[in-house]
């Protein structure tokens, strides 16, 4: 009887040695590099491939993004815009429109579950969402008015900023809030959630609400301008700045996103920047991938996935920056 290794071709043996997350990263990168690059200017070159290739590639890419986004703890929209904008032949206007819908669909799908589980707080979300909704409209209008190369360059910088934030930021499971600020007391922003891990009922309150409101104004502009959702910014703002427990921050972030992305999505829809052939395969692929990702949550090693996503974002961020500056077209 032969040993398996001796019968396996070297390439296949190498692939077998790869752990699943890194294999997924390799597939994603291969898919991205297989695509023709587009110019940073207004018009990208047309692709010689048949029309159906791109929606199919989009569906597969979004499926993989959906799988890794859940265990990595970031929204699919954050990965979607830099990756699809950098490596697919679609104009960035349509990619941002689809990105908002991807982020919106993910937030809507998770919203009811988070609310019923007590992990999303309406009292915390609504004041922040009002300001972020208004600023996301301004961000979307600004994004559609600026040249693609400027948006691409700014997107590259923002994505590299997200990578830094992911590497540097510390999270606090239950931040200590000694005293709520006057505004949060007046608005009655506090609540109770039952921590599934310990079974304890946790009573929480927040502070620095005025600063939080200002920060959410800026977050709304970025969400609308780049179409990347804003979970990456919402969670640290709620958790580290305002002192909401980590799980409540993550859940409430989804609720805020569902309202903010909804406002910005209408701008793109009204301006004709939502192309169904790009938006629908992306939304469906991402939703299916996220379901698999949620099931794999207990199997895959979170830290490995996180490193993999950081690598992917770093690559996509550098690509977006160089493309925007016209250095890698």
């Amino acid at each position, binding site marked *: 009887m032969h040993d398996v290794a001796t019968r396996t071709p070297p390439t296949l043996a190498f692939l077998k040695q790869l752990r699943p997350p890194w294999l997924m990263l390799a597939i994603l990168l291969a898919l991205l590099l297989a695509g023709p690059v587009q110019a940073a200017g207004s*018009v990208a*070159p*047309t*692709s010689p*491939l048949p*029309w159906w290739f*791109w929606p199919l590639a989009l569906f597969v890419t979004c499926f993989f993004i959906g799988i890794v986004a859940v265990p990595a703890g970031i929204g699919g929209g954050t990965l979607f815009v830099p990756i699809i904008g950098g490596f697919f*032949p679609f*104009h960035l*206007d*349509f990619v941002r429109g689809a990105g908002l*819908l991807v982020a919106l*669909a993910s937030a*809507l799908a998770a*919203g*009811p579950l988070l*609310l*019923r589980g*007590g992990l*999303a*707080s*309406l*009292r915390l979300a*609504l*004041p922040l*969402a*009002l300001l972020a909704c208004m600023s996301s*409209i301004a961000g979307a*209008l600004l994004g*559609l008015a600026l040249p*693609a190369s400027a948006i691409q360059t700014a997107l590259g910088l923002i994505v590299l900023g997200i990578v830094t934030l992911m590497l540097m930021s510390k999270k606090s499971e239950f931040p200590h809030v000694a005293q709520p600020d006057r505004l949060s007391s007046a*608005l*009655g922003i*506090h*609540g*109770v959630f039952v921590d599934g891990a310990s079974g304890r*009922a*946790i*009573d929480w*309150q927040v502070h620095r609400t005025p600063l939080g409101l200002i920060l959410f104004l800026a977050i709304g502009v970025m969400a609308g301008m780049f179409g990347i959702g804003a979970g990456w910014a919402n969670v640290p703002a709620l958790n580290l700045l305002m002192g909401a427990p980590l799980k409540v921050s993550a859940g409430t972030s989804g609720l805020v996103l*569902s*309202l903010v992305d*909804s*406002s910005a*999505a*209408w*701008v793109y*829809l*009204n*301006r*004709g920047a*939502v192309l*169904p*052939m*790009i*938006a*629908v395969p992306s*939304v*469906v692929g991402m*939703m299916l991938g996220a379901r698999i990702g949620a099931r794999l949550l207990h199997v895959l090693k979170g830290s490995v996935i996180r490193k993999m996503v950081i690598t992917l974002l770093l690559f996509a961020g550098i690509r977006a920056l160089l493309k925007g500056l016209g250095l890698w077209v």
Partner: protein
Amino acid sequence: MNTPNPTNAQEQQAEASRYALLLDWGTRVGVLALILSFAAYLFGLLQPHVPLEHLPKVWNLPVSAYLQSTGSPTGWGWLALAHKGDLSNLIGIALLAGCSLPPLLGLIPLYLKRRDYVYAGLCALIALVIGLVASGMLTGGH
């Protein structure tokens, strides 16, 4: 850690349950409409406004050039062409983009009943912002 206030916790749970129920149904209807219309578009059951083979020549253009090249409508103009395969997908997309409105409006009577006028006002204001941007009045896409 403070002792939870049971009345407040119950009130917040009631708000969350109502919002979740309406959001859940809105999302389901939107996703279903999206999948059905996309299937009809993809399998040629509905003729598209922009032929599928023509898409690679226009999806790389900025949105203004795309609209000019394809004669596609802006604002709610797509509704008149909703029988076209590609534009029919915008029904599902509009449902998803607007499905936060019923939960927001549904919370207002609950807050008013409790005399929580600030949160009733917040819900009304967010719904107004989303309604205005959806109408195209804020974006010039009317």
